C-alpha cells in the first residue's frame, strides 16, 4: 500500500481511484497482523472503504513522512470546518446574535458576547456590512456554524471587526493555503513590493490595505493572478511591477 501510494505522490488523482492492500496473489485483509507496519494516515480527500483507500477529490496526491497522505485540490467553494479562521460579512443583527456570511451554505451566528471587551452592558459596535475575522467554533453539516472572535481565555488575538479603507476579494482555497503555508513565498515577495496590511481568511477571502487606493488595487490584482503562476513567473511579474510603479 505504501509503495502504491508513494508511486502516485505528486500525480493527479481523480475521485474513484483506489489503492488496495494487495501486494501478493492472496488478498490480505487489514486485520492481518503481518500488515501492522503498513499504517497509512488518510488526510483530506482520501477515504477508507473496507480495506482499501479511495480518493474522493480530484487533485495532487501529497505526502508527509512518515505516513500521512492527502489530496490537494483547488476549489473555490468553502465548506465551514471547525477551528478555521475566516473572514465574514455581518448581514443581520437579531437580538443578541449577529448573522455573518462566511461563504458556506448557511450563515454563521456570532454572539455579541464573543467579541473582546463585550459585556451585557457594554455592547460591541458592530454594524451590518462590517468585516469580521473570527474562528469557527461549531461547523458541521447538521448545524448552523458558530463564529467567535475570542479564544478560550477571552483575548482577541487579532480577531474581531476590521476593514476600514481596504479591499476584500475572493480567491480559490488552494491559493489561500499557499499564502498561509509556513514557507510564505508569495507573501515574502509581496512584502518587498509595497508595504501593506493583509488579512487572509481560510474561506477564500483576502483583505488588502495599502498606502493608496491604486496600490491596494495593484496588490489585489497581483494576488489574483498568482493563482496559476509558477514561482519564476510570479517573481518576474513582481519585479516588473516594482520597476513600473516607482
Amino acid at each position, binding site marked *: 500500500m505504501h509503495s502504491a501510494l508513494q508511486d502516485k505522490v505528486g500525480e493527479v488523482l481523480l475521485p474513484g481511484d483506489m489503492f488496495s492492500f494487495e501486494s501478493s496473489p492472496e488478498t490480505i485483509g487489514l*486485520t492481518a497482523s503481518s500488515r501492522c507496519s503498513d499504517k497509512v494516515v488518510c488526510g483530506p480527500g482520501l*477515504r*477508507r*472503504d*473496507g480495506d482499501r483507500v479511495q480518493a474522493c477529490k480530484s487533485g495532487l496526491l501529497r505526502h508527509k513522512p512518515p505516513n500521512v497522505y492527502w489530496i490537494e485540490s483547488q476549489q473555490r467553494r468553502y465548506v465551514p470546518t471547525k477551528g478555521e479562521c475566516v473572514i465574514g460579512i455581518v448581514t443581520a443583527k437579531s437580538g443578541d446574535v449577529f448573522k455573518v456570511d462566511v461563504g458556506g451554505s448557511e450563515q454563521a451566528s456570532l454572539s455579541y458576547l464573543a467579541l473582546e471587551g463585550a459585556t451585557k452592558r457594554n455592547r460591541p459596535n458592530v454594524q451590518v456590512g462590517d468585516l469580521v475575522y473570527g474562528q469557527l467554533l*461549531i461547523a*458541521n453539516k*447538521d*448545524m*448552523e456554524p*458558530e463564529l467567535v472572535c475570542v479564544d478560550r481565555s477571552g483575548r482577541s488575538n487579532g480577531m474581531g471587526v476590521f476593514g476600514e479603507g481596504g479591499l476584500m476579494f475572493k480567491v480559490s482555497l488552494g491559493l489561500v493555503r499557499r499564502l498561509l503555508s509556513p514557507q510564505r513565498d508569495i507573501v515574502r515577495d509581496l512584502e518587498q513590493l509595497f508595504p501593506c496590511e493583509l488579512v487572509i481568511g481560510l474561506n477564500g477571502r483576502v483583505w488588502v490595505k495599502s498606502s493608496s487606493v491604486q496600490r491596494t488595487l495593484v496588490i489585489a490584482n497581483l494576488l489574483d493572478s498568482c493563482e496559476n503562476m509558477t514561482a519564476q513567473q510570479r517573481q518576474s511579474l513582481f519585479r516588473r511591477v516594482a520597476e513600473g510603479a516607482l
Partner: protein
Amino acid sequence: MSPGDKLCVPGDKLCVPGDKLCVPGDKLCVPGDKLCSTEDCVPGTGVYLRHGYIHSSLAGYVLRKNKGEELPVISVVRETETQPLPHVGAIVTCKVTSINPRMAKVQILYVGSTPLKDPFRGTIRKEDVRATEKDKVETYKSFRPGDIVLAKVISLGGVQSNYLLTTAENELGVVIARGEAGAQMVPISWCEMQCPRTHAKEYRKVARVQQEYTCRHEDVSIAGSLGGATLFHTEHTEHPILNQADMHGPFAKS
C-alpha cells in the same frame, strides 16, 4: 364493535336526514349532528349536550355501548382504535429531525411498543441529554439527524410547544445511528459508536438497551450485534431493531 370497512368518496349518499340511530352500526356523523336526546343515551366522548339533545362534536363514527346500566353510552370516534398518547414517564422511540446547539428536535414514532399513526414532535433540551456534566454537553456529540433515540417524556408541553423528552439515564439515548459512510454503526461505549466499514468513530449518547423495551421497526436492518461491545452487556437483546441476522460485526467476541 367496529364501524366496518365502509369507504366513501365525496358525493356518496350516506343516509337521509331524519334517520333514527337505533342500532349501532356504521353511522357517520359530522360536528353538529343531533344524535339523540339525553333521555335515550348517556353522553360519552366526542359529543356535547345542547338543549337536552346530544350532538356530535367530531366527524367520525357513532358508537353506542351498552354498559349494562339503564342507558347506553353514545360516543363519536374518529378512528376504530384510539391511539395511545404519550403520557409523562412513558418511554418513547423517536427519530431526530434536526439539531441546534441548544436542543434536538425529534419526531415521536412509538409509545412503548405501539406505533403512532401520526408522529408527534418532541424536544430534547441540551441539559436533559445526560445526568452528569450537563453544561458540557455538545448536541453534535450526542445526536445527529436521522438517529433513532429512546427517550422518556418529562412534560406534555403546552399548546404551542412540543413534548419535552429526556435521555438522562443509562437505558436512554441513541439506539440506531448511521455513520458518515452510510453504514449502521456499532456502539463501543456509552459515548462512542464505530462504523464497521470505515472504522471511523463518532460520538453519540448511546443507550444501554434492555430486554423489556422492544419496538417493531421493520425499515431498519442491522449489520452487527450488540453482543460484542466491550463496555456493554454481552447478551442478545429482544430489541427487534437490533435483532441481528446471524452476522457478527468486527467487534463481536465469538
